[in-house]
């Protein structure tokens, strides 16, 4: 059967989701062509604010990478705007002159930002807040510093303001009406929000009507109707969007505010569907992601012969500004037939308002503590008669039916059809079913299988509680476990905030993230020190007092307080001269034990601390550098003799081991990293239980990773096969850098990879050459600061206080 020719105009989140449904339901039925005016793949537009504030990168918000389109045989025309639809010939034509014939056409042109028609609106430095180009322009402006004026105190405007503030700009928000977010919040909640934003250093001016944007060659300020002038080097307009209907209108389709569609997303032409922000269904247009995803589901179902229908439902609003929790759903305007219940807790800065009509909730606003949002929304959606719990309704779910519930018990008590993830329309029953049927144990698994918590992430806590409720102790809450007793934050959150807030010292982290102790503890300090070393190469100054003794003195402490010293033996190779030097050191310092380690090196055990600098000086003379046998860093690269000597060896495994070790040594990592290179599949170097293992085969180099042979025993995962040594080295370095940037302190590669997902690692390191190169380049940059021999530094006097007693007293002299 011939495939249906499906042409899509626009490549945003709605058509992207529609294709996912389509490929799942009927993988072979469609021949898909997409025209995208933006020169990009499909990315998560609701995550632009975290990109602006620095909490996420563009790469991490891509939904479908190039390989996804390739895998599904989709023809994607990036950077091409469709200029015309010929409904008779059933073709579309782009501005680049490309035309495509369709059996079915989907118009998903989204919306355009509204630009208020004031003088100066076209000046350079005036931006909308709509796509990645806008974010990049704002980031460039933030780099130059100065003041940003954001026109519009709605959801987007405030997220832009918080992001620019986080990037170090002075920010003023101009809002036309008396309170912020007046379409979602009542005045009291708006006031609390204004206070919270003001406390973060964002200036808020409500009742501010813009008269003109000032400047000659670029923007220099904003003038208000009352005559006030505010200096500005950047002006962001975030006053609303309007459906982009030009193309549909020109093609003669029925258009009101948006492109008119029926509840099956079909336009006035049966061969043309429309969905997303450009579509008008039931007289409404939508801008939040949940209904757009709903449209995607309906459209896909119709395209595969189903009869799904789009139904309007209230969608909660949440603000994605770290530290400002607000939740709003439904209708909360005043009216004669309405009652309201209000709770104010000034001390906690919390506010709740529930609006009732005929004893049913029709609107709710929560500020400060939003944990009960889903519960109120559930009551609202189901139209539950709340007269039986009116007295305690406002206190939330925990107060219904007796004692206080902990959050896990509260989630457990929710009915199965309660919506957990608003963005993706995932209910509790589906999450629980996925966990139990598929045996999911990690948040990322749940995200991958259900999409819950995979969009804006504001329901992450809810999903985790649900996992605890479902799995009990089996839920390994690594992602939510706090680093230590000094902070409630987990490692992932701390790593994210170090980047987002640009924290570059341990005291800064402790101050900004509200550590509960004055100087941290032996758990968090080494972790923070590592995160700062890894995140700010060349900028952060290593804190020796926050390292374990092994790393502080660059030798392993043993049970009797003496140390062991391991020099580097590149790829396991040594020479007569090196062996002689080691023998001399052993004799000279009366070292009691010499042993060959499991990683093919020589260990000198029982060295007194005060002898360490002299031992290193002698070893350094002979050309040795530290083997980092003590380090959360690169340790050994084990090898076999390979093609140089072995009758089975297919490649020069020793040579590759030496190259890898010379390239990678000195790098600090979340936990120790051990490599091996085997010259043939007989695997004499035991590469298949290492953090990274390379098995040489006739056709090249098979790269393995995520093995373990310690507390856990685990064979490696295969990352892939590459042809040349150069590729093997680049892939290895990129993989280690990805781990360096994402791993939690003391989390070995095998645990990290299991947490983030093998598929994600493969996609970023093996399949996406651009991303691999970026990791590789960041690793190389970091190495320019890291690759210095700690032993020679100590020999030349660094930290010499470590190795000499402060004083030697003779008690009998007193």
């Amino acid at each position, binding site marked *: 059967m011939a495939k249906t020719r499906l042409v899509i105009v626009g490549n945003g989140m709605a058509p992207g989701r529609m294709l996912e449904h389509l490929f799942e339901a009927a993988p072979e039925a469609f021949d898909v062509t997409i025209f995208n005016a933006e020169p990009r793949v499909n990315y998560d537009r609701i995550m632009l604010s975290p990109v602006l504030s620095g909490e996420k990168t563009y790469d991490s918000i891509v939904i479908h990478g190039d390989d996804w389109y390739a895998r599904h045989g989709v023809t994607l025309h990036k950077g091409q705007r469709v200029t015309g639809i010929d409904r008779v010939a059933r073709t579309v034509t782009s501005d680049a002159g490309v035309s495509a014939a369709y059996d079915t056409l989907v118009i998903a042109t989204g919306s355009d930002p509204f630009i208020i028609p004031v003088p100066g609106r076209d000046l350079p430095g005036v931006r909308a807040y709509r796509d990645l180009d806008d974010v990049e322009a704002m980031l460039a402006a933030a780099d130059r510093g100065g003041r940003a004026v954001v026109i519009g105190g709605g959801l987007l405007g405030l997220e832009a303001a918080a992001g620019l503030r986080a990037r170090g700009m002075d920010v003023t928000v101009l809002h036309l009406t008396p309170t912020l977010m007046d379409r979602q919040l009542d005045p009291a909640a708006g006031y609390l929000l204004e206070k919270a934003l003001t406390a973060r250093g964002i200036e808020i001016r409500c009742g501010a009507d813009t008269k003109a944007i000032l400047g000659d060659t670029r923007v220099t300020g904003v003038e208000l109707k009352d005559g006030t002038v505010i200096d500005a080097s950047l002006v962001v307009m975030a006053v609303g969007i309007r459906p982009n209907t030009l193309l549909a209108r020109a093609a003669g389709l029925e258009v009101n505010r948006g492109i008119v569609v029926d509840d099956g997303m079909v336009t006035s032409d049966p061969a043309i569907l429309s969905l997303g922000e450009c579509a008008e269904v039931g007289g409404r247009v939508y801008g939040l992601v949940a209904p757009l995803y709903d449209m995607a589901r309906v459209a896909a179902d119709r395209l595969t012969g189903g009869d799904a229908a789009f139904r309007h439902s209230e969608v909660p609003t949440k603000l994605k500004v770290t530290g400002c929790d607000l939740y709003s759903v439904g209708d909360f305007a005043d009216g004669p037939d309405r009652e309201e219940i209000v709770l104010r807790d000034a001390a906690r800065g919390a506010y709740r308002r529930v609006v009732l009509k005929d004893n049913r909730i029709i609107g709710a606003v929560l500020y400060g503590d939003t944990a009960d949002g889903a519960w109120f929304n559930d009551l609202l959606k189901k139209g539950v008669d709340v007269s039986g719990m009116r007295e305690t309704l406002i206190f939330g779910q925990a107060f219904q039916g007796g004692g206080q519930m902990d959050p896990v018990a509260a989630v457990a008590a929710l009915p199965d059809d309660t919506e957990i993830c608003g963005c993706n329309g995932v209910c509790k029953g589906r999450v629980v079913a996925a966990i139990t049927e598929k045996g999911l144990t990690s948040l990322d698994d749940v995200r991958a299988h259900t999409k819950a918590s995979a969009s804006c992430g504001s329901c992450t806590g809810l999903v985790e509680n649900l996992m605890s409720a479902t799995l009990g102790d089996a839920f390994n809450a690594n992602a939510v476990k706090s680093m230590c007793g000094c902070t409630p934050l987990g490692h992932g959150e701390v790593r994210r905030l170090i980047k987002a807030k640009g924290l570059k010292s341990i005291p800064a982290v402790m101050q900004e993230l509200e550590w509960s102790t004055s100087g*941290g503890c032996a758990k968090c300090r080494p972790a923070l020190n590592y995160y700062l070393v890894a995140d700010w190469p060349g900028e952060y100054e290593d804190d020796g007092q926050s390292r374990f003794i092994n790393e502080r003195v660059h030798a392993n402490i043993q*049970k009797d307080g003496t140390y062991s010293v391991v020099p580097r033996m590149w790829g396991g190779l040594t020479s007569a001269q090196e062996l002689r030097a080691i023998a001399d050191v052993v004799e000279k310092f009366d070292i009691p034990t010499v042993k060959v380690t499991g990683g093919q090196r020589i260990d000198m055990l029982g060295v007194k601390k005060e002898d360490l600098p002299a031992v290193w000086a002698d070893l350094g003379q002979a050309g040795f550098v530290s083997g980092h046998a003590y380090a959360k860093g690169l340790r050994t690269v084990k090898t076999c003799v390979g093609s140089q000597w072995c009758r089975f060896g297919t490649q020069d495994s020793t040579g590759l081991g030496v190259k890898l070790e010379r390239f990678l040594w000195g790098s600090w990592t979340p936990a120790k990293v051990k490599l091996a290179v085997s010259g043939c599949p007989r695997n004499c170097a035991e590469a298949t239980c290492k953090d990274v293992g390379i098995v040489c085969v006739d056709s090249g180099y098979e790269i393995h990773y995520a093995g373990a042979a310690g507390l856990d025993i685990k064979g490696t995962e295969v990352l892939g096969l590459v042809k040349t040594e150069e590729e093997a080295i680049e892939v290895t370095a990129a993989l280690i850098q990805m781990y360096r940037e994402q791993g939690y302190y003391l989390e070995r590669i095998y645990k990290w990879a299991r947490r983030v997902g093998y598929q994600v690692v493969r996609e970023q390191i093996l399949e996406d050459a651009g991303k691999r190169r970026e990791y590789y380049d960041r690793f190389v940059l970091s190495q320019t600061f890291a690759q210095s021999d700690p032993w020679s530094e100590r020999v030349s006097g660094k930290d010499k206080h470590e190795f000499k007693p402060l004083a030697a007293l003779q*008690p009998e002299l007193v």
Partner: protein
Amino acid sequence: MTAHTDTRAAYAIVGTIDDIPAQGARCVTMGETRVAVFRTADDRIFALEDRCPHRGGPLSQGIVHDGCVTCPLHNWVISLQSGRATGADDGATCTFDVRLEGRTIHLAMRAND
């Protein structure tokens, strides 16, 4: 090095506070005994025998935090003030009196009882 007496015990000048890194320690040998002299982040000075009550680990090599030191061998947390193990662990190491005069460190030559 000068030794001098006061009412309770003999003290010796062992160096200055600047000889010890903040949140770090240096050792003083006192015959057979090793004494670890600690400096906290807020420049208080403490002295303990350099032996963890658990397995004799060198406390001077541990991480100093919040008036405690974490032993480098098995992570026991010892109070610098009392020499006692904190948390669920039980045991104590000897403490030594120590005084700061200006930036000069005076260390008692005898452990507290």
